[in-house]
């Protein structure tokens, strides 16, 4: 263990005491501790080592791990390229000092070779927000309408640079509501658009999301989650928008909610979401989070194809005998007339409406509309495969997760299994409608906690609540929920198994 020793001589006796305690503790655990004067060494070069100490340590590590110092220095110069040469030089000096210090004072080195089979054939390196931006382009989406919000904005920064390559445009709206309204306008006009935001933005967009559900307007919404509520933790990771995204609208507003768990999925799920949005005539939310947004990974280069793109806007003649909401009884699906289609003229409304898009407050029309919008989710659920179980399907513990927690969960499961425990996990991608088979999966195990990032000081409550949601929402989302429509009682009072 390499340990900064500045606290050994701290003027505060309590700090010195804690340092000694920690040191003794490390040694007791059998660690070889090297106490290093990092602060002192840095002071030789800079007046405030808090700025730049990391570069000194990077230099040390580069020597210890036997990495190419020139390459590291190139990267440093790249990172500070927008600053002055002075800044680059001082960082290089600190790096060199660290490298030299390790050379003179640390008598061992590690060599880590990358196994050739681990290398991707043709890799791309990017973070999740860039991947989502590329996904937008790959989906053939032409418009991203956004309002700046951390940690989502960098996706739009990226698109502002590269979107013209596929003929797209980033609209920075006057507020979150206008951002989704603008996207809805383009979508209504046949160009399914995307809006990218984070939790507080979702809160503001909620009424518009309800409109897109009610009037069946395809739309892709990417929610790069941060900590909440309110302004909360703009730069931190939390998976706290789950319920707000699935249920957070006035009335019963069933919509599709996906959760990307890897950077590669941040890319591919946008393509999927656009297709789902258009086929099911619904808004589709993609949940990512600050972890995915900023985490940089190498991913396999996707084989781009024009099949991902949205087809050109259909401007053929509309069969006047077909109503604008010609719902299929079984699936709730219908084709939509797009402005420009002769004979398809209709007035879209957020009010309750009948198949002819005429305002209708009568019980029968409202019930039918409700059923049809709900049935679309049931139809989608019927096409989903059960999630793969990581580990054995039977055992003592099944961990259910979604989103960026996949790495932590699967690693923990592997470690626990190596230690002889009967632990498995499943990771969900479809949160609404829920992937099928969870009921069976959970029945085969004794315990089933849900792992997500959220409510920190009360993990017990968090898990308990989430578990009850998982177990009740699963069956609800399937066909039994709405086809045939269940009695009111079974919808309003989920069982608390």
């Amino acid at each position: 263990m390499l340990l900064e020793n500045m606290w050994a001589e701290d003027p505060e006796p309590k700090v010195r005491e804690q340092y000694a305690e920690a040191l003794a503790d490390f040694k007791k655990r059998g660690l070889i501790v090297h106490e290093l004067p990092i602060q002192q060494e840095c002071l030789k070069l800079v007046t405030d080592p808090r700025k730049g100490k990391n570069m000194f340590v990077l230099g040390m590590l580069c020597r210890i791990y036997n990495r190419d110092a020139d390459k590291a220095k190139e990267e440093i110069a790249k990172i500070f390229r927008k600053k002055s040469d002075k800044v680059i030089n001082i960082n290089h000096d600190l790096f060199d000092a660290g490298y030299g210090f390790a050379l003179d004072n640390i008598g061992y080195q590690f060599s880590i070779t990358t196994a050739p089979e681990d290398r991707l054939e043709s890799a791309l390196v990017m973070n999740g927000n860039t991947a989502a931006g590329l996904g937008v382009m790959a989906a053939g989406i032409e418009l991203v309408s956004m309002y700046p919000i951390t940690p989502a904005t960098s996706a739009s920064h990226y698109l502002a640079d590269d979107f013209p390559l596929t003929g797209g445009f980033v609209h920075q709206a006057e507020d979150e509501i206008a951002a989704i309204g603008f996207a809805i306008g383009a979508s209504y006009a046949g160009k399914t658009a995307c809006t990218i935001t984070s939790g507080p933005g979702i809160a503001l967009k909620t009424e518009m999301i309800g409109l897109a559900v009610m009037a069946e307007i395809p739309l892709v919404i990417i929610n790069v989650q941060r900590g909440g509520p309110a302004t909360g933790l703009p730069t931190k990771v939390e998976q706290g928008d789950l319920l707000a995204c699935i249920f957070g609208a006035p009335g019963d507003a069933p919509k599709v909610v996906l959760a990307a768990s890897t950077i590669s999925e941040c890319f591919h799920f946008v393509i999927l979401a656009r297709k789902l949005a258009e086929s099911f005539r619904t808004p589709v939310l993609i949940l990512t989070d600050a972890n995915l947004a900023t985490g940089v990974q190498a991913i396999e280069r996707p084989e781009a194809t024009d099949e991902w793109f949205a087809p050109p806007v259909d401007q053929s003649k509309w069969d006047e005998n077909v109503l604008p909401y010609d719902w299929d009884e079984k699936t709730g699906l219908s084709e939509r007339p797009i402005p420009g289609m002769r004979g398809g003229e209709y007035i879209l409304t957020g009010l309750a409406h009948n198949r002819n898009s005429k305002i209708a407050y009568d019980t029968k029309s409202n019930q039918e509309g409700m059923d049809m919008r709900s049935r679309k989710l049931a139809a989608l659920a019927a096409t989903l495969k059960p999630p793969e179980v990581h580990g054995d399907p039977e055992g003592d513990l099944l961990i259910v997760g979604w989103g960026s927690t996949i790495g932590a969960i699967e690693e923990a499961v592997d470690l626990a299994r190596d230690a002889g425990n009967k632990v498995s996990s499943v990771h969900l991608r479809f949160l609404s409608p829920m992937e099928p088979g969870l009921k069976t999966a959970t029945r085969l195990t004794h315990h089933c906690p849900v792992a997500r990032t959220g409510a920190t000081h009360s993990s017990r409550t968090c898990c308990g609540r989430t578990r009850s949601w998982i177990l009740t929402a699963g069956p609800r989302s399937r066909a039994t929920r709405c086809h045939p429509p269940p009695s009111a009682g079974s919808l309003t009072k989920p069982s608390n198994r």
Partner: protein
Amino acid sequence: MFGLKGDWSLDVKERYFTLEDYCGAEPRWCTGCGDHGILAAVHRVCRDAQLKPEKTVAVSGIGCSSRLPHYMNTYGFHGLHGRALPVACGVKSRRPDLDVWVATGDGDCFSIGAAHWIHAMRYNMDLTLLVFDNGIYGLTKKQTSPTTPLDVPTNTHPSGALLPPLNPLTVTLGITNISFVAQIVDWNAQLRHEVIRMAHAHKGTSFVRIIQRCPVYVESIGKALQDEPARMQLLTHEKGVQVDDSVKRQFPNQAEHDPSDIHAARQLAEDESVLPLGILYHNPDAPRYDLMSSVGLEMTAEEKLAGLNEALDHFAI
């Protein structure tokens, strides 16, 4: 043969649209409501311009005004309260081929949708924006709106509106990059039609504030103006709206105003003792955001695929 000359050519349009082609459902506005006249003018302007119904989109928010799309036989979008403009701008952003109309009211536009009003004016996309300003919330039954005159009693302020009304003209004329600002009263048919026609013909966001009678809740507002025509001032100019002499005679108070003069327009708007009617401001050359947002529309799938691969290349190692 049969007396027809060989060089005669009959100019028969493939499709000719009559007023009926633009009429949707039977309007359900109250009797005597000014909205009926505005709707008639919109139908006429559509007919005169021979707009293809399938290429025309009427977007609205919520309120009495916002029922308008239902009475059109075109495409329509009756969305959320205050949010007509973002939706209309979104429609226009990637579909410049569509003719977009926006129907909104004093509550919808000047209150809940105020942010969008300011910014949509600045975007200056090619939209015809009609604000039905009756000075009251009608659909929700007589609450104070931003333009309710001082002391007019409402259900939310029974002893009269507490604050002086917002002046939509000074606000609009203060926004950067505006291109068309006009004001009319719903009950003067020729002025109404001519201004809406000019608004529609203008390429850019044309803002038309229509003083509109609500005989049910605030009859006094319209009546005061009708009883005292000198409180209105007809703006005349060769670049402004042209009306017949018979119409001019209805306005004892007239002023020559060059619509390209924004300073003069602002002065007219600030003088609240008279209501200027006609074109206050017109600038056909203001930058248009719809021309900017519609870039890349002509790209083929092949070009897009090449572009996508180029974008992916940026991240290759």
